């Protein structure tokens, strides 16, 4: 175990796989900054420096469909591939994921696998980002697309393990990497996999079940601590992957607590936790349910407006207090 940043953890997971998988390629735009990170004891991971072109696509164009398609074509040819897409451009590659990556295996009668990782850089709702650079919640669109796997890690451990699992998967994986304030965390230095479709119970409790995935999941731990101080033991479940979605773990929790709070950082209409809410409503009738999400408005530039619109720790605490 060693303390490492999420970026280092993910890049080192990629480097580990690149060392053992000869044709694994990595596509991104811009220069070396994207592929270099400093880790524990001053260790450096440098994908371009270590593997070079053409496996690492140094200085790719600001042309996300080209980046995604380059990785996709190499993947169907038989080379596992990773494309890194910046946060504001996730929908630029939606067509490649919707009509190509997710369908290639099925539509050609299982002749081609598509071992592709779409590493989607998540945005942060920080100052000066404004409506086009500060939006989150697009993962719900990809979760709706057939043939894709969609993962949303919220811890360094999950990010590293899910990236390794994504690279080894024969199916296309959308890796939603939200850059909220995840500080360095203690994770194994060697490669390991985190299984898709297995929700994690972060804290156990019997008063209420809270379901949130990244980036909302990063707001919940503080709320759980605050609630515990008030004598309310909330059970916090992070689904980690939206597709496949582990409803069974959530169902078991709701059967115990009878209450469910859903938190989305994406927009209100048809956000991913709507799916959780529907499935629980059907499986555990009578569940008391509430959902928090970002309203259906573009993210304003002014930070105080954005903060007010986002369901943060205080909103979670408030909602739970009203529900129990």
């Amino acid at each position: 175990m060693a303390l490492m940043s999420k970026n280092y953890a993910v890049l080192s997971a990629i480097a580990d796989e690149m060392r053992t998988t000869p044709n694994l390629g990595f596509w991104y735009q811009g220069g070396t900054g994207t592929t270099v990170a400093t880790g524990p004891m001053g260790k450096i991971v440098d994908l371009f420096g270590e593997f070079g072109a053409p496996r690492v696509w140094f200085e790719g164009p600001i042309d996300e469909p080209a980046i995604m398609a380059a990785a996709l074509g190499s993947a169907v040819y038989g080379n596992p591939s990773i494309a890194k897409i910046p946060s504001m451009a996730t929908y630029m590659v939606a067509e490649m994921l919707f009509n190509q990556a997710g369908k290639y295996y099925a539509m050609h009668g299982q002749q081609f696998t598509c071992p592709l990782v779409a590493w989607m850089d998540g945005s942060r709702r920080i100052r000066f980002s404004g409506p086009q650079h500060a939006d989150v919640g697009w993962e719900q669109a990809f979760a709706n697309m057939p043939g894709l796997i969609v993962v949303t890690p919220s811890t360094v451990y999950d990010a590293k393990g899910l990236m390794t699992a994504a690279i080894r998967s024969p199916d296309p994986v959308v890796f939603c990497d939200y850059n909220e304030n995840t500080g360095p965390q203690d994770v194994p230095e060697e490669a390991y996999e985190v299984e898709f479709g297995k929700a994690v119970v972060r804290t156990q409790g019997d008063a209420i079940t809270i379901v949130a995935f990244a980036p909302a999941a990063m707001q919940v731990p503080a709320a759980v601590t605050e609630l515990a101080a008030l004598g309310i033991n909330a059970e916090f479940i992070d689904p980690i992957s939206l597709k496949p979605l582990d409803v069974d773990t959530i169902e078991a929790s709701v059967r115990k607590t009878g209450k469910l709070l859903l938190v989305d950082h994406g927009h209100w209409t048809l956000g991913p936790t709507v799916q959780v809410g529907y499935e629980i409503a059907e499986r555990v009738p009578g569940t008391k349910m509430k959902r928090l999400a970002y309203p259906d408005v573009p993210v304003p530039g002014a930070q105080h407006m954005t903060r007010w619109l986002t369901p943060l720790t205080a909103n979670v605490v408030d909602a739970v207090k009203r529900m129990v």
Partner: protein
Amino acid sequence: MSRTEDRDLLPGMETVTADVKEERVPATGRVHSRRDFLKGMLATGIGAAFVATGTQAVRAGPYGPFLAGDLTEEKLVDIYRTMLIMRHWELKNKDEAINGKIGYPGHLYAGMEASAAGVSAALRNKGDENYIDITTATHRGHGATLAKGADMTACFKEQLMKADGLDRGYGGSMHLADRSIGMFGVNSIIGGNVIISIGVANGIAIRGTDQVSVAFIGDGASQSPYLSSALNTAKKRNLPFILVIENNGYQVSARHENIAATQDLADLALGFNIPKYVVDGQDVLAVYDVAKRAVDRARAGGGPTVIETKCYRYFDHSGLAGAKLGELGAFNLGYRSNRELQHWLARDPVTLHRRTLVRWEVLTEEQADEIEAKVVQEIDEAFEVAFASPEQLADEALDTAYASGLKMPATHWYDWNTRA
């Protein structure tokens, strides 16, 4: 008569008519080398016109020696047979659609055979995955699939979406693919196959093999934003990539010159400093000629090429409008004249190649007839076999969306956790 002479001029293009004499040079009627060929040209007195301005000769002329002149007789006949398969498969497809046996014929390729057959003749179509050349095609892809060497019965089965079709019934007309021959898929998103082929070329670069990645598109895809992405990447990364624009003149029912900014769509290549060829798409050997140059260059590490074949589709954009049982070409379509269609039919690519082979004494008329009759018979049999073959299980799709075996529930049933 030399090998270049008997191909006609492309309609509507600038012509310099060579005074073609019915005189055979050299004595064998065969051209064995470039030297013999040029000697022959001079002997017939057309050499100067051909070399200086060329037109029909022109189609091959400006790009250097006539490489199709070096093809073996076996290969030349093989190209003829391939074109016949493409033609008669499509006619059978059309006729059985009219008969109601095929639900929808898709986008018919008839009339454009020289493009895919000529290019594919310059490719490696057999071998392992690190050797074979790889193609993708646009939605009008029956031709590209058959030209690469796909089994005609398997193609019919997929057209009928049967369980043992090329795509096991999951794809159909607009998604034909056969990995075993390096045909990586007909793709019905206009321009989508182009950047996938770029990705394949990237994959080839990673593996360091000398394979070539080819994308077939129509004139309609040439305005796709993917094109600039693809060409920039191909040039900058020096990828073994060939873009073949089959310019049949119409984007659905709109003439391409009303849409495209340039008359020659291959001019796209100019902005990226990529070599381009504009070629008579009725003439399979002219297409082969430029394709061979492009393939050789790509294999040797010389990077991408853009080829535009000027051709024509005999039927409507898709479906059966104007199509009749047993008839070649869809007449009385609102957006084009019957005379225009007849004009192109007069230079039919299959007939043209046959005529060349007969004049070169590669085949006699009788042998050509025999080959055609055999192909027609094989296609009739292939269709019968395909028609009688079983359909896919209705619920299999739930289990086959993910290579990892992830299964999706049947959510359309009342109790969707169990299958009905």
